């Protein structure tokens, strides 16, 4: 069957459905609140050359970073066999940060390697310095178990030793093994769906359409870029600290738009930081591609073709392309958000009527853990905030922005399974920046510990407020407060300490930036 407008749409649906069904299976069979409640995972289909064909993503940060995982698996192994499953999390070999464990399975047709399916899930604990595996680290070794690309299954046989080693390095091994099993279950679904497709439509036809889908997404992405006026646009924003000290860590983007091509150069960004905010290039690419995808009004299937028109340059040895073994755990969640703020800030110069003011620009990571009797517990959550306003209206309040879209853990689920209490969870009134259109409000969330626990916070926009646009005011900065024995102490954006039962942690998340001058408010 030759490729035409009809068959293209048919195969777009078929590949997307395969990825979606994998995600459905993973969610329903998983154990950790982080996967089952918060949906911190993605599934995707790749061709034999490790080009992504379809993805079911809940989280944009996975968008452009999964291809690096499949590429790393292909680079590592000369040969694949039916029934193999590769697992990895090493940020310097196809991963992003250690809690994101990626699995990759080859799919064969007539003895020939034809496709891969892959899944990535954020595992709540993979060891490291502090519970929740988001420590204020200074080298990768402190962040948890490093899994280089290795075969967890070989021709269908489980590598029990490797599995035991991974699981033994987690503070909640029971949950780990359940979640890893759920990933494997998702792969079985993906493999059979792709195999069915090839049986039904033929190997050749399926391959031709996989290739055509890449061209399709490339053309649609090019159409988006072509609408941006040609020119050079620059913007500079900064991170506030690396968990070791508070200091300015500039992120700088120079965007060159030429017709249907775009080049994003991050030269001028800070050298790699001693602490945990370094982001590997896969994350930087994800963030830049996310910004382009945001400009499209048509639903573009996310695949390798989307990435082709956008060249991303990250200087070696910088905070956006660190050298092993630099610490990276927060690059994924915090630095990625600042990259978006920077790229969108530059694009706002080209299209001021379209682009929004800055959103909260952080994920407000809360990780904590301790023990009740013999049993360890771990909790990881991110908290929403204000969205930036735009010419179209005020920003959303109390929601995740840009590079994440995970759900919250319901308070009733949290208190049932963990020795914690949530005292308040409400909007932070007035925290959105003023303007003709107001920025969205942040969230106020207060925890009380019922047992001693180690608490780690990784958050940003505690010193530098999310910017407003066209004369709109910046959003309110976030604030982290620890309350012990009735005394409140502001603890800064990045914090880790052993707290006692009865201590409280209050997180106030940033508001979004306003848009337009207040006088002209409608």
């Amino acid at each position, binding site marked *: 069957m030759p490729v*035409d407008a009809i068959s*293209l749409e*048919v195969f777009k*649906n078929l590949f997307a459905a395969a990825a979606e069904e994998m995600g459905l299976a993973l969610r329903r069979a998983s154990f950790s609140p982080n996967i089952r409640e918060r949906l911190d995972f993605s599934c995707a289909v790749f061709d034999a050359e490790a080009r992504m064909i379809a993805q079911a993503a809940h989280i944009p940060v996975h968008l452009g970073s999964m291809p690096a995982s499949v590429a790393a698996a292909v680079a590592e192994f000369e040969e694949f066999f039916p029934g193999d499953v590769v697992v990895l999390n090493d940020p310097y070999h196809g991963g992003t940060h250690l809690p994101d464990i990626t699995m990759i399975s080859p799919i064969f047709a007539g003895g020939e390697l034809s496709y891969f399916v892959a899944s990535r899930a954020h595992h709540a604990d993979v060891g490291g310095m502090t519970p929740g595996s988001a420590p204020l680290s200074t080298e990768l070794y402190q962040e948890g178990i490093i899994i280089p690309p290795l075969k967890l299954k070989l021709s269908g046989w489980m590598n029990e030793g490797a599995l035991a080693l991974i699981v033994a390095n987690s503070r909640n091994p029971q949950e780990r093994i359940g979640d890893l099993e759920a990933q494997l279950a998702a792969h079985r*679904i993906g493999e059979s769906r792709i195999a069915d497709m090839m049986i039904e439509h033929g190997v050749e036809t399926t391959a031709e359409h996989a290739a055509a889908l890449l061209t*399709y997404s490339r053309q649609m992405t090019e159409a988006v870029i072509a609408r941006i006026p040609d020119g050079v646009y620059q913007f500079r924003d900064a991170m506030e600290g690396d968990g070791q000290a508070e200091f300015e860590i500039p992120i700088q983007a120079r965007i060159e738009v030429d017709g249907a091509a775009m080049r994003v150069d991050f030269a001028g960004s800070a050298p790699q930081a001693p602490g945990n905010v370094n982001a590997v290039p896969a994350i930087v690419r994800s963030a830049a591609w996310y910004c382009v995808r*945001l400009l499209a009004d*048509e639903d573009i299937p996310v695949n390798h073709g989307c990435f082709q028109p956008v060249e991303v340059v990250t200087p070696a040895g910088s905070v956006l392309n660190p050298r092993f073994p630099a610490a990276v755990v927060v690059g994924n969640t915090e630095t990625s958000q600042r990259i978006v703020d920077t790229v969108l800030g530059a694009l706002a110069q080209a299209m001021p009527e379209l682009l929004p003011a800055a959103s909260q620009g952080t994920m407000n990571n809360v990780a904590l853990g301790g023990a009740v009797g013999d049993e360890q517990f771990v909790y990881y959550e991110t908290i929403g905030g204000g969205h930036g306003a735009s010419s179209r209206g005020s920003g959303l309040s109390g929601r995740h922005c840009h590079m994440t879209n*995970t759900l919250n853990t319901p*308070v009733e689920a949290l208190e049932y399974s963990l020795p914690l209490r949530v005292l308040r969870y409400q909007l932070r009134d007035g925290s959105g920046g003023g303007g003709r259109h107001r920025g969205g409000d942040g969230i106020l969330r207060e925890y009380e510990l019922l047992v001693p626990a180690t608490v780690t916070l990784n958050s940003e926009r505690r010193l530098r407020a999310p910017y407003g646009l066209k004369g709109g005011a910046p959003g309110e900065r976030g604030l982290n407060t620890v309350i012990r024995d009735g005394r409140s102490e502001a603890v800064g954006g990045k914090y880790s300490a052993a707290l006692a039962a009865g201590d409280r942690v209050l997180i106030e998340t940033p508001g979004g930036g306003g848009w337009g001058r207040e006088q002209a408010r409608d």
Partner: protein
Amino acid sequence: MRAGVDIGGTFTDLVLSDSGRLKIHKLLSNPGQPETSMLAGLEAITPGGLAALAQVAHGSTVATNAILERKGARTALITTAGFRDLLFIGRQDRPVLYEIHPRIPPPLIPRERCYQVEERLDFRGEVLMPLELAGLDTVLDQVARAEVDAIAVCLLFSYVNAAHEQAIKQRILERGIVGEDWQVVLSSAVLPEFREYERASTVALEAYVRPVMSRYIGKLEEALPAATSLRIMKSDGGVMRARRIREGAIHTALSGPAAGVMGAFHLARLAGHEKIITLDMGGTSTDVALVAGEPQPRPESSIDGLPLRVRMLDIETIGAGGGSVARVDAGGALRVGPESAGANPGPAVYGLGGEQVTLSDANAILGRLDSERFLGGNMALDLAAGERALEELARAAGLTIIEAAQGVIDIAAVNIDRAIRHVSIARGYDPRDFTLVAFGGAGPLHACAAADRLEIPRVLVPPAPGVLCALGLLLADVAVEYSRSVMRRADEDAIAALKDIRRELLDLARAELEREGIRDDEMRFIVSLDMRYEGQAYELNIPFGDAAAQAFHAEHERSYGHAMRWRNVEIINIRAQGLGSVDKPGLDAVAVEPHAAESFGEKLSPIDGAIKMYERDELKAGAMFEGEALVFQMDSTTYVPSGWRGQVDGYMNLLLERV
């Protein structure tokens, strides 16, 4: 005499069962006053007037429309202090991942009518902070000033201990802030299950539609003779007596598609098809559901982006119907839906000025709709207008007109294909074991193509595919359900320990069925457990019994491909469902004498060559024919491609099978 009345946006369908015989009637709806079309229809169809009606079963979109148009009651919400923004924060996510200016659906209750009271329970239901009465009165002063029609109450952990919610209700009634008991809606009564946002959203929806539905049902009851009992369709496929609308109005919000599934289920079972997939295709959307044995409700759904946790049949809805618009996108792919041309201007062939290509246009160009017989011959088709519209599309796609028309139909089939996979393969069922039951105006046109894609061997088209929902209302059993959150390990003692709760729930279900006037020998009860591995968030529904844990492992393996027998299993909820079967009207088989069907003519299709044409009304039991064929009837057209043959069974269903 009994009647089923389905009031949709455009048409009101009625089916009357008169001493075993069925009568069908269709008239235009009156969206402003839905009750008028019901009464007019009943008058028209009931010999001897309304007094002869013993029972009316009604499916309504009043609650659905109140929500979609945000025209429900003026409502307040009361929550635990610190959580007044529950409805606004939601689950913290934005509805669309890639959206430069994200929006959320407008909430039903504005923020200024969300109140909070000092009180707190822990997860065991123990009181950490008693309900503060002085503070409650201050809040209620504000509620009183807001002049609301309904008050929703959702406190943390009220599903374990409802005392605080009940105390608030009592105080509201003491102070006369609302006139009636039913205007105060407690989350512990509506949805005693964990997850505070979903519970708050559900109780807010209930409070929002209850006064509206209560008024509407009141009007119907007034208009119907006192002796006529009125029953209302619920989302779970059962009916309830109208009086119960004041306990569960929101149960009607997603009941429309459920009626069709129930109609299909009963007809198919009668004809010997136990495992079915339903394909209900209308003008703007298509509903797909799978029934293997009994129709299964699922616990989670949503309406207009707002979570709604009532049991509804597991139905997948997609934006593909006869009016779905086709276009070529920026990347050069042909797309169909979810945009719809609606009823006006509608498809180009309607000749009402529509210029966009719709699925109906594609069918018309391929000769599958017949100008003389469309809607019983009441609407001439403007084929030239359809051709002009398709010409544009074909040029953009680089195809001929015929190829483009076929493409539009193929893509609709792919969308249907994806929905069927969702309810079958993704849930561990093999579609090849099922019969596809096609209904709605457009279902029988597309059923064989969908069946071909998934190797479904049989398609069943009921005698009146356009009014199957009304028939479903007549056939639906009375269903009541009581559940309790138990949250315990499924150890050896579990089943024995739950025996008392089981008895209690069964007694409640029996008492309610008695109130519905169901005789003992018409009652059936199903007790089940929602179970999961400790640590999972999603439960599987397992029949109650000593081997429940074993059955859970097996079901987990079937659903997800693996079981973990070494893990502890938890029981989250126990549910008792009571079903009261209603008399099924005159659906007796007639003798089947196989014979060749007589076609009334042939037409030339641009791609399929000659298509034989049949009148559905002329086909007797046993009539057989082969594709290419078209079968016309007032409310639908069936397309039978080559490679398929059809036969009318003893119940006058059209059974299509692959040759």
